[in-house]
C-alpha cells in the first residue's frame, strides 16, 4: 500500500517537473566536472601516456557535450534531452561500477575465487536435488496442493543450496572485505557515483518521465534496442576496437610495454620494408662486400639477365616468416579444404552409422590445440615416434616380401629437418581444420535440392558429372566461406608451431611464421611497438586477400 502511494506521488506532474529540474542541474554539474577533468588532464603534469590522455579526453568531451546539450532539451521537455541524459548516465553508471569493482579488487578476487570454488562444489548437489524435486512436481499436476508443495520445496532447497554454496566459497569474508574497501576514499567516491548515476538513470527511465517528455514508440524502440545492444557494443569497443586502435598507435612508437613509449612515426614500418638490392661480381661473392651489413642481412640471391644479385633486408626474419606463412597457407588451405569437400560428400550419404563418423572427423577441430600439438610432437619424434616406427615397419615388410633391400628406411626428421618441419605443421593444421570444414560442406550439401540430381540422372549424367556440374557450382558460396576463413586462420598460425617446435620456429627459421615472429618481438625482445607494426602489416595482408576473394566470388556469381 505504501509502495503504491509512493509510486503515485512520484508520478505526479509537479514532482516530475521537480525531478526534471534536478536532473538538469545534475547535468550542469556533470558538464562542469567533465570540462574540469579535461582541463586537469592537459594542464596538470601527470604521468599519463599520450594515447590514454587522448582517449580519456575524447570520452570526457563526448559526455560533457552530451550533458550540455541535455540541459536545455530537458528544460524544454524535449525527448532528445531524455535520450542524452540516459546515454550519459548509463555510461557513467557502467564506468563507475567497473571502476569500483576494479579498485575494490573484485576482478582479482574472481581469479582467486577459482581456488575456493572447490569448497562449495558439494552444495551443487543440494541445488541439483532441489531442481529434481521441482521437476518431479510436474508429475503431480492433477493434485494441485502436492504440485505447489513440491515446487515450493524444490525452490527452497535450491535456494538453501545456493546460499550454502556462497557461504562455503567465502561470501561473508568477501562481503566484509568489500565493505572495508568501500571505506577507502576513492572507492567511497565511486560507490557514490554508482548510486547517483543509477538513481538518475532510474528517474529518467520511468514511464511517467517518458510520457512527460513525449516519448514516441520509435523512441522507445530505439532506446530498448540500444539497451539490449549495449553489453556487446561496450564489450566490442572496450575489448576489441579499443585495443585494435591502441595497437595502431603503439605501432608508431618504440614501446617496450613497460612505460617507454616514444613516437617514432613510420620507423617500425620502415624497418620492416627496408630492402636493398646489390649486384654481385660473382654468384659466390660475400654479401658483406656489397651490402651495408650494419643495416642489412642477406635475404636471398637471384640471377637476372645473366647477372647475380643479392637482396638484403633490414629485418631478414620478417621476410623469412612471411615466406613461411605464405608456404603454409598455400599447402594447408588446399589440404584442409579439398579433403573436407570429398569427406563431406561421403558423409552425406544415408549409410547407417554415418553420424558416428561425422563425430569422429569433427573431434580434432574441438580438441585443444596445445594438447594435440604435444601428442603430435611425440608421434613425430624421429627416433622413438610412432610415425617413423610405422614407416620403418612398412619398409621392413616390403623388403622381406621382396627378399631384398628394395627400400631404405628414410628416418624422416619431422621436426629436425628444415625441409620437412613446416610440412609437419601443415599436416597437423589440415587434420584439425578439416573436420570443421567438413561440417560446413555438409550443411552446404544438404541445401542442394535433390530434384537437381534426379533431373541430371534422368538426363543420363553419371555421379562424377553430377559432382562437378551440380555439387561444386552450387557449393560455391560455402567454398568461398570455407576458403576465406581457413586462409585467415592459416595466415595467423601460431599455437601449433609454438608448441611443436623447439625452439619455437625451428629448426633454424624453417617454421617461423608471422604471428610467431611478432610474438617473439613483442614478448621476448621487448619490442611491442615493432610487434604491433608487424601485426598491422599482417592485418593489411589478410584484409587485401579477403577483399580479393570477395571480388572473385562476386565475379563468379555474376557469371
Amino acid at each position: 500500500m505504501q509502495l503504491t502511494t509512493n509510486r503515485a506521488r512520484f508520478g505526479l506532474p509537479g514532482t516530475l517537473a521537480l525531478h526534471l529540474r534536478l536532473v538538469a542541474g545534475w547535468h550542469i554539474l556533470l558538464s562542469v566536472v567533465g570540462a574540469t577533468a579535461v582541463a586537469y588532464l592537459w594542464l596538470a603534469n601527470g604521468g599519463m601516456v599520450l594515447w590514454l590522455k587522448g582517449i580519456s579526453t575524447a570520452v570526457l568531451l563526448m559526455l560533457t557535450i552530451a550533458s550540455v546539450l541535455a540541459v536545455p532539451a530537458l528544460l524544454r521537455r524535449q525527448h532528445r534531452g531524455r535520450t542524452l541524459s540516459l546515454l550519459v548516465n548509463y555510461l557513467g553508471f557502467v564506468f563507475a561500477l567497473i571502476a569500483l569493482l576494479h579498485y575494490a579488487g573484485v576482478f582479482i578476487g574472481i581469479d582467486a575465487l577459482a581456488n575456493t570454488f572447490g569448497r562449495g562444489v558439494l552444495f551443487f548437489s543440494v541445488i541439483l536435488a532441489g531442481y529434481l524435486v521441482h521437476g518431479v512436481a510436474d508429475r503431480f499436476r492433477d493434485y494441485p496442493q502436492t504440485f505447489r508443495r513440491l515446487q515450493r520445496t524444490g525452490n527452497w532447497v535450491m535456494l538453501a543450496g545456493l546460499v550454502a554454496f556462497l557461504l562455503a566459497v567465502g561470501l561473508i569474508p568477501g562481503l566484509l572485505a568489500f565493505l572495508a574497501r568501500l571505506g577507502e576514499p576513492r572507492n567511497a567516491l565511486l560507490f557514490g557515483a554508482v548510486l547517483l548515476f543509477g538513481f538518475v538513470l532510474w528517474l529518467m527511465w520511468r514511464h511517467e518521465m517518458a510520457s512527460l517528455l513525449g516519448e514516441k514508440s520509435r523512441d522507445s524502440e530505439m532506446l530498448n534496442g540500444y539497451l539490449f545492444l549495449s553489453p556487446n557494443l561496450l564489450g566490442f569497443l572496450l575489448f576489441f576496437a579499443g585495443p585494435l586502435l591502441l595497437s595502431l598507435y603503439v605501432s608508431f612508437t618504440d614501446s617496450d610495454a613497460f612505460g617507454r613509449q616514444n613516437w617514432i612515426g613510420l620507423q617500425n614500418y620502415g624497418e620492416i620494408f627496408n630492402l636493398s638490392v646489390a649486384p654481385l661480381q660473382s654468384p659466390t661473392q660475400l654479401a658483406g662486400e656489397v651490402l651495408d651489413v650494419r643495416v642489412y642481412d642477406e635475404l636471398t640471391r637471384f640471377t637476372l639477365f645473366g647477372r647475380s644479385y643479392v637482396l638484403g633486408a633490414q629485418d631478414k626474419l620478417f621476410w623469412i616468416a612471411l615466406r613461411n606463412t605464405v608456404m603454409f597457407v598455400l599447402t594447408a588451405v588446399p589440404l584442409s579444404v579439398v579433403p573436407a569437400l570429398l569427406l563431406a560428400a561421403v558423409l552425406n550419404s544415408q549409410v547407417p552409422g554415418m553420424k558416428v563418423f561425422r563425430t569422429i572427423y569433427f573431434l580434432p577441430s574441438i580438441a585443444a590445440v596445445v594438447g594435440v600439438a604435444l601428442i603430435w610432437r611425440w608421434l613425430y619424434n624421429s627416433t622413438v615416434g610412432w610415425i617413423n616406427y610405422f614407416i620403418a615397419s612398412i619398409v621392413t615388410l616390403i623388403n622381406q616380401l621382396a627378399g631384398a633391400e628394395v627400400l631404405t628406411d628414410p628416418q624422416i626428421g619431422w621436426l629436425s629437418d628444415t625441409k620437412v618441419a613446416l610440412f609437419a605443421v601443415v599436416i597437423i593444421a589440415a587434420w584439425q581444420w578439416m573436420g570443421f570444414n567438413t561440417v560446413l560442406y555438409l550443411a552446404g550439401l544438404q541445401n542442394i535440392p535433390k530434384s537437381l540430381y534426379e533431373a541430371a540422372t534422368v538426363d543420363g549424367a553419371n555421379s562424377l558429372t553430377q559432382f562437378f556440374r551440380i555439387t561444386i557450382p552450387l557449393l560455391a558460396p560455402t567454398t568461398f566461406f570455407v576458403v576465406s576463413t581457413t586462409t585467415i586462420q592459416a595466415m595467423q598460425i601460431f599455437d601449433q608451431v609454438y608448441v611443436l617446435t623447439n625452439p619455437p620456429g625451428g629448426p633454424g627459421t624453417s617454421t617461423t611464421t608471422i604471428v610467431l615472429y611478432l610474438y617473439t618481438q613483442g614478448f621476448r625482445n621487448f619490442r611491442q611497438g615493432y610487434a604491433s607494426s608487424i601485426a598491422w602489416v599482417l592485418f593489411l595482408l589478410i584484409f587485401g586477400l579477403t577483399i580479393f576473394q570477395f571480388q572473385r566470388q562476386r565475379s563468379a556469381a555474376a557469371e
Partner: protein
Amino acid sequence: MRIKQLWSLIALLLLVSLVLAACGGGTTTSQPAANEPAANTAVEPAAPAAEVTIRWRTRPDNQEEANVYQNISNQLDAQLEGIKLVYEPGGSETASYQDVLKTELASGTAPDVFWIPGTDVADFATRGLIYDLRPLANATPGYSDDAFYPGPMLHLTFNPATGKSGEVLWGLPRDVSTFALYLNLDLIEEAGAEDPRELEAAGEWDWDAFMEVAKAVSALGGEFKGYGGSAWWGPYGVWINAAGGSFFNADRTACALNTPEALEGLAFAQMLYTQSGVAVPYGEDPEPPFRAGKVGMFQNGRWATPGIRTVNFNWDVVGLPTGPNGEPGNWLFWGAYVVNANTPNPEQAWKLVQALTTAETQGKVAALGANIPSRVSQEALDAFLTFTPPANNQAFLNGLAQDPTAEGPLWAGSWPQFVTVMDAAISSLLTGQTTLDNFAATVCDEANKAFNR
C-alpha cells in the same frame, strides 16, 4: 507475478553476492600502476603497521618441485614476522614462464618477488622492472655477496650506469647447475664401449674418447644414437667454450662466434650432428629416446635428474669431456630471486629473498635433486651429495670446480635478439643447411645488430 519478481530479485542478489564473495580471495597487497616510476635506488616505504602479503613465484620444472617450494613457503610464512606469504607456482619453461611474467609486469599484477633466469637480469634491470636491493643489503647485518658463487654475483651486482660490479644488487641466486652426460650404462656396455666414468677417472675423457663411445653406441644400428643434446644455446655453447671460444668478446660488447676457437668447437658439433650421424638430429627432443633406452649419452643439467630417475635401465652421470682448451667448457647455470620494482613492500620482499637463499632452504630444495645450492656452503653441498641416484653426483660439483662459464646477461645489448640470431644460424649449421665458412662469414654481421639497440 510478484513471486516471480521476488525470485528474480533473490537470484540477482545471489549473483551479486557471488561477485562480492570474490573479494575475500584477493590479497591486501595493492599494486601500483605499471607505469609508475620504480623506486629503484631509494628505500622509501614506511614500516607497515599490520601484516603485509608478499606474493612470490619461481619456475618449477615439475609438480614435485612445486610442492617443495609450497612447503618452504609455508615454513617461511610461520618464521617471517609480519609477512604473509603467498606462493604462486609459475608455469614451466614450455608454459612460457618469462612471457607470462613480463605480461604481468606490464599490467602491474606481477608478484612482489619472482625468479628470473640469469640471462634476463640485464633486460629487467635496465628497464627498471626490478629493485636495486643494495641499500637494503648494506643495512642487513651479516649479509655478504661473497656467500654466493662469484660468477652469478658478478652479473647480479653489475651497475650498467658505471659498468662496474659490486655497486648494486639485483637479486640473489636461487641455485646453480652444470651440465653432465647422463649415461645409459646398459647400452654402452652392449656396444662394447669403454665406461666414460672410468675414462674420466683415468684422465682420458676427452673429445676423442667421447666420439669413440658415441660411435660405438651408434654402431648398434637402427634408431640407436651415441649422443643427444637439446636445441638451445647451452648444449652447443659447451663445444664452443671447450675449444676456447665464446659467444662474445672479452668485455661482452660484440659477437665472437666467428673466432677460430668458436669455429673449432662448432666444427666438432657439426661433425657430431651431420657428418658422423652419431647424435639425435638437432632439433629433436633427445630426452624421450634416452628414456626409451635408445641413446648412450644425454647431455643435460641437474634439473633433468627427477625425470631420468624413472628409467628402467642402469644409468649414471659423467662430466663433460675435455676439449682442445683443456677444459670441458661447462656452463654455470643460474637464476635469481629478484624484487618487483613496483612492490609496495621492498623491505619485506628483501627478507623473503634472504630467507629463500639460506643454506637451510637451499638444502631442502637440493634434497629434491633438481639443482645445486647457489650458496658457497659445505653444508648445502653435503646435502646435495646425499641424494642419489645418480651415484656419481660429484660430476655436477666437479663441473662447478672446472672453471665453468657463468650464464650471463648482455648488458651492452639485447640477449633475446642475439640469441634469436645465434640459434637460427647454429641450427642451420647443425642441420646441414649451411657450411661453416658461410656461417663464419655472416653470423657476426647479423648478431652484432643486437648490440646496437
